[in-house]
């Protein structure tokens, strides 16, 4: 595992975007060779998308031969609802770059057969040749995508009923009315993300500090689902200083000492 500590959230966004750009360019995608990205939503990755749009506009990267798979989507809210992840991706990323809409995949929370939708999603990922780089964020309780505490660490894409705590946390996005918060979501499983070639998890803010501690300084535990990535061969955890508040000084010092090595990961001519 690599733990990359940046000064602040903006630097995290910039580094993440540079890494994505670097990986896509290094892969040298083409009509018969698509780079496959797994994508998150939420506040943490927003800055990364903005940098990526900037790089696209400057002509640095293209998403023409990139396929994307989003992590999750609510069940039963209209696609154009401002809180839907379809809306988020369209507004914050897809319509600002040159990705082919046929290659941008998001789980359909309004599918008639939700189970079939999930099975089909796994199949699509498989057909795309697997995910090269899965990017994720986490919740303060250490959940990745909608894999809430107690989720199987071998889980695949499926329907999840959301915990009361999550509904309460999300009520602010739905007129502070918990009744309006979708009770279920479709989400990729921890196992789905584990299958990706590289996993990059963005963690910013002191409210996520305890989750980061649980993720990397204690054992693998399904109550902190992000801890599963301790067993992934290629995980990058990218955080800001605030998120390190609960870590041991030793942990922080060790990884900070590797700063020069980490910078190489986003240099144009280096191997990833």
């Amino acid at each position, binding site marked *: 595992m690599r733990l990359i500590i940046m000064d602040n959230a903006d630097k995290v966004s910039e580094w993440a975007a540079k890494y994505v750009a670097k990986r896509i360019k290094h892969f040298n995608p083409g009509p018969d060779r698509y780079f496959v990205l797994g994508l998150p939503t939420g506040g943490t990755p927003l800055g990364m998308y903005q940098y990526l749009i900037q790089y696209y506009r400057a002509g640095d990267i293209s998403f023409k031969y990139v396929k994307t798979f989003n992590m999750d989507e609510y069940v039963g809210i209209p696609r154009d609802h401002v809180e839907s992840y379809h809306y988020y991706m*369209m507004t914050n990323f*897809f*319509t*600002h770059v*040159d990705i*082919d*809409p046929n290659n941008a995949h998001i789980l359909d929370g309004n599918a008639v057969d939700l189970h079939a939708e999930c099975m089909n999603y796994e199949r699509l990922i498989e057909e795309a040749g697997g995910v090269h780089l899965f990017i994720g964020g986490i919740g303060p309780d250490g959940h990745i995508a909608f894999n809430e505490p107690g989720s199987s660490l071998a889980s695949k894409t499926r329907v999840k009923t959301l915990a009361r705590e999550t509904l309460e946390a999300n009520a602010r996005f739905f007129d502070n009315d918990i009744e309006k918060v979708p009770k279920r979501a479709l989400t990729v499983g921890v196992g789905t993300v584990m299958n990706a070639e590289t996993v990059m998890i963005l963690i910013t803010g002191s409210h996520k500090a305890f989750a980061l501690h649980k993720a990397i300084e204690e054992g693998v535990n399904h109550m902190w689902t992000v801890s599963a990535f301790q067993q992934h061969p290629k995980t990058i955890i990218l955080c800001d200083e605030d998120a390190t508040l609960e870590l041991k000084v030793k942990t922080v010092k060790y990884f900070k000492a590797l700063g020069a090595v980490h910078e190489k990961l986003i240099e144009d001519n280096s191997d990833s």
Partner: protein
Amino acid sequence: MNIVTKYFNCNILKDGQILAHDLWVVDGRIENPEIIFYDNKKIPDIEIDCLGSLITPGFIDLQINGAFGVDFTYHNGDGLDIVRKGLLKYGVTGFCPTIVSTTSSNYHEILPKFKRCRGDEQGAAVLGAHVEGPFISGLKHGAHSLSNIKTLENSNLIDTYGSLDNIQIVTLAPELNGSMEVIKLLSNNGIVVSLGHTSSNMETSIQAVKNGATFITHLFNAMLSFHHRDPGLIGLIACPPTVEKPLFFGIIADGTHTHPAALKIAHKVNPEGLVLVTDALSAIGLPDGIHHLGDEQIEVKNSKAYIANTNTLCGSVTSLDECMRYFIEATNCSVAEAIETVTLHPAQVLGIQQFKGTLNYGADADFVFLGPKLNVQSTWINGQCVFEHNSGAGYIVKKTT
């Protein structure tokens, strides 16, 4: 689905707010990118970098007597195309050519020439004629010739106008005998009744609104002054009667016809009903110098029109975009509020807000690119650029098919 154009790097006025949003246009209409992306699975064929411009809906002028030397009332109805084309540089994409009180024979001759037409590269849309008179008060005739003013008792609508087909707005005085029936008849036929050139008190004005009037012609001008015991027609803007349709009022913000304090009062009292109109004369858009307009000789000096060789102002020559900028200066209102007085509100008066006056999905792609000083950089109709200012159009095409 045909050509998809994306306008990016712009701020747009939508739902009363100025937001950094892209605008997507398909086949001359503003469309929802969500549907284009997820359902139609299309990417833009053309991408336009708007260089940070403010995109607003195209401006709409509900009262304009002529421009560029053309007078709608006195030039046999000719020259409409000159005005259509010329108004584009002021950001105007739709207008109601306005005819002042004239003779029946003149109405019969000229009204058939003011057919509604869509906007295109030839010019702004003609949204129907505004007949200001002749059923107005002899006490408040303003610049209208007294000899042309009529009562509803000795003439009827059809004898006077010929046909109502091309008429979109009728300005009349509600105190005339028989006016309530006429107001009902016109509004039931989809014609906007505007109250103006009137000595009407508040009570009669309220009755007129209850019978279907929805607009007031150039507030403060050619009506009774505000009186605190009978506020007259002006009083309506403070307490419009509760009826289905909201009440709007036109106001001339040219810095001459309405004092800034009066603009401020109108804006504070009823910002949602306020519509800027130019009430412009044919001299608008003419260079400085002596011009012949009808029988009159007029002189344009420093963008103001005077009766030649005098200091007597002879009507407004201020363009709608200039009125909008002046309105902000005079009232301190927000840019968004000011823009709505020349876009959404006039569209609502005409009941065409589904297609004009907004940048909502489904609306016609008529818009204006404004620069940092709210200067018109370019004007677009149905997604086509129809005017570019020579100092910069405010955009560059980034990608074409």
